[in-house]
């Protein structure tokens, strides 16, 4: 059950997206996420949503994995969608279930609710595509390079990156460990699934105490192992694989620039797709 979490996992492959320079991928993902919040109408949002789907097709990540990742955020999506319907009373009233209460489902509410749902889904698609197609080591290497200007402020970027690598590296290990400890305590009759919230929180004590104790033990062991291999944490280490931007990265940048320009432009012209949709409803 706990092993089914696919967000943040890496799926090896050799698609165009896999081959992109990780720095380029991080920047592009970031730009797209910002662009998602610049969208003012369904044209620009639709464009970005379409691009996220197209990128997934190009990456050859199986649809089942993507859907599994989205399953994790269903609650969040439904919750925000419902809130939008509840609090937006623009447009025409479509349904007024309680005459006494000042509440109605309006066309404006539905339009903004669908809008925000597509926005969240695209957001998740873009960001999970980054982790699905980039190995954790590549990711932290790229972050280290992107953060290197911070060296000017005497921040030790390489130890930051090392910490990040280690943290990412240990997520699957810890998940596996939680699984083992939970199994062991369940085997001794621990009930982790039923009961009130307080009871369930208390039932987790036998899982978290060993987890924390083991994490400290692991941290010590890892620190020793790193010292044995002469790790000092200074900035003078060189890389075995130098990252270099290639033609495909510049192509991707150009594509993103055009898209973002389109998104901003449609915002200025205010095509007001809202009204088009309103007529449909």
């Amino acid at each position: 059950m706990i092993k089914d979490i696919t967000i943040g996992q890496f799926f090896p492959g050799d698609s165009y997206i896999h081959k992109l320079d990780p720095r380029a991928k991080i920047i592009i993902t970031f730009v797209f996420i910002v662009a998602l919040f610049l969208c003012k109408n369904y044209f620009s949002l639709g464009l970005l949503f379409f691009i996220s789907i197209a990128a997934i097709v190009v990456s050859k990540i199986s649809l089942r994995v993507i859907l599994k990742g989205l399953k994790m955020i269903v609650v969040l999506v439904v919750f925000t969608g419902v809130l939008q319907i509840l609090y937006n009373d623009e447009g025409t009233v479509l349904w007024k279930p309680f005459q006494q209460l000042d509440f109605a489902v309006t066309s404006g509410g539905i339009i903004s609710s669908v809008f925000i749902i597509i926005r969240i889904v695209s957001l998740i698609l873009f960001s999970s595509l980054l982790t699905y197609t980039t190995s954790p080591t590549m990711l932290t290497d790229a972050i280290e390079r992107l953060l290197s200007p911070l060296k000017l402020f005497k921040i030790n970027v390489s130890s930051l990156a090392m910490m990040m690598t280690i943290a990412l590296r240990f997520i699957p290990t810890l998940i596996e460990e939680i699984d083992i400890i939970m199994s062991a305590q369940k085997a001794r009759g621990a009930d982790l699934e039923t009961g009130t919230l307080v009871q369930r929180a208390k039932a987790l004590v036998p899982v978290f105490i060993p987890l924390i104790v083991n994490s400290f033990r692991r941290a010590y062991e890892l620190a020793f192992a790193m010292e044995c291999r002469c790790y000092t944490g200074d900035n003078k280490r060189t890389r075995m694989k130098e990252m270099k931007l290639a033609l495909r990265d510049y192509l991707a940048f150009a594509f993103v620039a055009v898209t973002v320009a389109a998104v901003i432009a449609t915002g200025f012209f205010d095509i007001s797709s809202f009204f088009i949709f309103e007529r449909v409803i």
Partner: protein
Amino acid sequence: MVILEVKNVSYGYSHGTPFEIAALRDVSFSVEKGELVGIIGHTGSGKSTLIKMLNSLLKPESGQVLLNGKDINTDKASIKEARSKVGLCFQYPEYQLFEETCAKDIAFGPKNMGLSEDEVRQRVLRAAEFVGFNKELLNRSPFDLSGGQKRRCAIAGVMAMFPEILVLDEPVAGLDPAGRRELMSMIENYRKATGATVMIVSHSMDDIARIADRILVMNKGSLAESGTVKEIFSKTDKLIEMGLSVPAATSLINKLRLKLPELDADVYTTEDAARILAAFYKRRKEQ
């Protein structure tokens, strides 16, 4: 009397990802009450998945696990019953200790079974006795103990439930030779005293040969062989093919038999080997 029956059980991990594995394929066997069953197999052969099936920590995708003739996956009550009747002790159980004192940690299982305080206390004391823990050790924090003591404390935690079937995954892994011997005899004592059925997963062919009544051999998710110590360890080539081996004593006698074919072939423990070689030496001297 058959106490546990595994019928055509199959199970797979990570469906729909590139890492999909079939962990168990159509595994069937049964265990008699009071038997000591050894489970051997290469790393990744499905042993650990198999034992998780025995108390419903994992549910078979197809097939059934019957405890005393009843399917353990029928409903919540049957699962709860299986959890208390099949005591599972995982590899390196010392990493699952969590309480302030050993006594409290050992009491965790019996408490979850809903027993009275008095009964829990008695069970803790009895289980502690099996693993050689005195009052002083019982009141110490489990985190202050030595590695071997932690291991025994954790195993006592499972023993205190007094399960009908005690399942141990590599109970002696990582212990020194004295610790291994000690722990093995503790398990044997527990079995003698309670009449419980015991299943042990181990990579030590010597340990398995010495104590098991019957051996299950797992290979690539299937049950490759099942039989007595003699039946299993006489098939040296087959075991080596599966990444396993025979006990050191068997291997020694097999090599000697190439030169001395008159030696008895059925040797599986060091004690047997010593006895046979002594007898052989005596015969030689008399001639």
